[in-house]
């Protein structure tokens, strides 16, 4: 059985990618399961989808803990433990990343035995108009890596799954899917089903005992501890201040930020809490002085963020 996981962010089309690949396998005569998995998280948060394909009826269900192939649409997720990209990967597995960073560098950076394949950039994640394309590209690459889906079948699967869209968009996506498929040609068929061990592991069962009701009620006895949830990980664009243009009005960026992560420091300079900024870019769109710019997160993470001028520059502010 093929077990394939797709990692991206909410809104990046991983569900559609899993459906295109699922449809392709189905058209090739496989039994198939495809499903997305999400919880409370929203657009921008790490999510995953998965596909199972086999020649016999599939009896497994739910998430795939030990995948044969992992497809990553957004390479900023790879190093993020919360995204679980590397979870369950062994030396047999293939990790395919859509990235400009070469495989060698990923190999150095990551603590994984998996074989790493790089899918060269075929879409711009930051361009909302290309969102569908992400699905087609990732599915196309995955189809080739399994070696079990032909080009014609892939085209048909894209057409089936994107049937609601216009013919032009469908054609563009078929082309992109095939382009990704061809890019992966040298790795065709390297993702193979892993043999499954049928020796049951210890269950680790316990007999659950009664806890005091105060402990056993679903209640949080704390205030404002959601700061421990780093929603900054959802961000693909980072708002960055150009303090030379900021007039410290504060009310625009500070009031409009839905998450309240822009606050004024003791000198009245606005500061962004990047641990929690979800990257909605409302502040960028609203700042009348254009003192905030949106930077790609991957790039911005490597930079030193500008710090507010010292208080004595106060008079310089208009």
């Amino acid at each position: 059985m093929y077990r394939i996981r797709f990692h991206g962010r909410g809104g990046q089309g991983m569900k559609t990618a899993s459906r295109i690949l699922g449809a392709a396998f189905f058209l090739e005569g496989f039994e198939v399961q495809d499903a997305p998995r999400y919880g409370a998280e929203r657009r921008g948060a790490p999510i995953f989808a998965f596909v199972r394909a086999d020649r016999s009826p599939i009896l497994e269900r739910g998430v795939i803990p030990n995948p044969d192939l992992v497809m990553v649409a957004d390479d900023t997720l790879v190093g993020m433990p919360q995204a679980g990209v590397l979870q369950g990967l062994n030396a047999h597995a293939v990790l395919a990343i859509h990235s400009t960073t070469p495989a060698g560098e990923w190999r150095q950076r990551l603590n994984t035995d998996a074989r790493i394949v790089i899918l060269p950039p075929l879409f711009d994640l930051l361009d909302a108009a290309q969102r569908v394309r992400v699905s087609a590209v990732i599915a196309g690459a995955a189809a080739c890596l399994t070696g079990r889906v032909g080009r014609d079948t892939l085209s048909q699967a894209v057409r089936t799954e994107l049937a609601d869209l216009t013919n032009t968009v469908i054609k563009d996506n078929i082309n992109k899917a095939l382009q990704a498929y061809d890019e992966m040609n040298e790795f065709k068929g390297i993702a193979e089903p892993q043999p499954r061990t049928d020796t049951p592991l210890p269950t680790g069962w316990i007999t659950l005992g009664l806890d005091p009701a105060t402990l056993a009620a679903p209640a949080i006895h704390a205030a404002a501890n959601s700061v421990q949830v780093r929603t900054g990980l959802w961000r693909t664009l980072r708002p960055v201040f150009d303090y030379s243009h900021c007039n410290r009005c504060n009310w625009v960026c500070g009031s409009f930020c839905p998450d309240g992560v822009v606050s004024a420091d003791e000198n009245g300079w606005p500061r962004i809490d990047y641990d929690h900024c979800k990257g909605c870019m409302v502040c960028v769109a609203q700042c009348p002085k254009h003192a905030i710019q949106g930077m790609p997160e991957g790039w911005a993470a490597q930079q030193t963020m500008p710090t507010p001028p010292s208080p004595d520059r106060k008079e310089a502010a208009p």
Partner: protein
Amino acid sequence: MSPKSQFSGMKDLPKTHLLAPGSAMCAGCGGLEAVREIYDVLGGKTVFVNAAGCMTLMSVYPYTPFRGSWLYTAMASAPAGAQGIRDALDILKSHDRIGEDEDLDVVVLTGDGSAYGMGLSSTSGAIDRDLDFLYVIYDNEGYGNTGQQTSAATPHGARTATATSGIGVAGRKKDLFSILAAHEPAYVATVIGAEPLDLARKVERAKTMSGPRFLIALSPCPTGWGFDPQLSVEIGKLAVKSGAWPLKEYVDGRLVHNRVPKPLVPVEEYLKRQGRFRHLFEPRKDEFTLMDIQAQIDAYWAGVMDHDGA
């Protein structure tokens, strides 16, 4: 507006924020923006009583963004939950089992799905009983948490997950403001996060009153309405400027419009930025429906002029 407001201008708006970040609302959520602005003024000496909706995921075990308290009830009965807490606090106070300093303001927080529909009976009952509470409605004009299906708050001509073809929803948005005002509660106001000064003054005003008080916050929803999250505030402002979302208050038995947009920005400017109305512009413009929507807004404001004598 009361001249004694501590919010005389934008510069008076809070510069630090009370509601902790880290909750699972979408990036650019207009509902969260409004709730956060409201919370800044209300403060943490509050207990929020919630009904099923997007904001139920504000507090997911083991994390909460609130400085005060929170109780999730069910979809239909958050105002009844507020009744139970308010009554119990009053009983405890009357027996000196808690002091004034331990008391809390009770705030209901629900979406339009609950407020306009399933929870309306519970809301009406709470007003009948003159319950001392504030009810904050984040109105994103659909059942947002389940993927934006049509609710009683969905406007005419919007497409939703359950109205995917034709002009979308044929019905009209329910006038919850008037339904609430007809109960003659202490206070009803419409607000929007994109107008934070107006919002802050209204919260401040509601806070000083007792009895049933309502804030209906139109909540631009990037996910459900189909727009880039960065447009959240721009679309909110256009909702006000186009007259689609009148900022108004029912107070002391009188209806007051806080802002009469003059001239009205054509509603197309508001609609065309949203995916849920794209079918009114592409592949060809649906002049009939657009005129119909504009006519509804014009008629509303013509009525306001007559009424207010403006």
